[in-house]
């Protein structure tokens, strides 16, 4: 039991550290795409381990504790489903709004595709 409790504290601390790093990443990155990367990504492990740590702490502190654990695992799964969908929608929306990604070597494979899609849409009109 004491091992699980310390594991829970470790997970909560790890989550807090990664959430802080996510915030720092948003502050330091140069453009929207890299900010999405830093922000939503560091928060995946951050939010997941924070919530899971809370669940483990509930598991050892209450009797019966297993509802805590199961419900927090459901929250973790929902975060894992919702997070990539929202960051993908943000990135694609930003590209459709013609925000050019910051690149050092000008690598942008999506440019051509986006042009073709726009031309097709204008033809359709």
């Amino acid at each position, binding site marked *: 039991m004491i091992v699980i409790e310390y594991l829970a504290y470790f997970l909560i601390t790890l989550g807090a550290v*990664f959430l802080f*790093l996510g915030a*720092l*990443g948003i502050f*330091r*990155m*140069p*453009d929207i*795409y*890299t900010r*999405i*990367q*830093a922000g939503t*990504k*560091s928060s*995946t*492990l951050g939010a997941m381990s924070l919530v899971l740590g809370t669940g483990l702490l509930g598991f050892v502190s209450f009797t019966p504790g*297993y*509802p805590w654990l*199961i*419900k927090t*695992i*459901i929250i973790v799964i929902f975060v*894992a*489903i919702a*997070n*990539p*969908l929202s*960051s*993908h929608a943000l*990135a*694609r929306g930003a*590209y459709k709004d013609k925000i050019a*990604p*910051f*690149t*050092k*070597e*000008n*690598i*942008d*494979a*999506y*440019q051509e*595709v986006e042009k073709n899609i726009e031309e097709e849409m204008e033809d359709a009109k």
Partner: protein
Amino acid sequence: MMNSKISVISKLFFTWLIVFVLWLAFTTSIEIYEVLTGLFISFIISLFTFKSFTSRGLKGLSPIKLIYVIKYIFVFLIALVKANFHVAKIVLSPSLPINPGIVEFESKLDSDFAKMILANSITLTPGTLSVDVIGNRFYIHWLEVKDSDSEVAFNEIAKQFEDVLLKIYS
């Protein structure tokens, strides 16, 4: 369309099972009233939703596939933790060593659901973000482009996930 009747029943039961397991997880109780209510309510919900919930029905539940699903979760968690530490290192280093760009690669997966899982896994692993999926081509925003060649990008980003997914969805 020959076995459409069987697949309707199989889809319905698959949805019922998933919704009922979710009910059990939420209530975390095995009292008889709770279980009976759960069976009834999840059946009604699955009646309305089974058409769009699953396309394969009970076929997705063979034990070998379940083992690969568990393997996929482990592969994914290891990649997630590794990549998180990697991005943390980038954020903390004073020179900010990034070389962002959008790369493309082609995937061998043909099921829509598998493609969604692959794209979501790529987005969840830090350092890579799927911008769009058109047909079989994935467009990935990559924080540290090592090579804009699609072969290299595929091996670096998606190969570990796709290998397992191909075994689940084949």
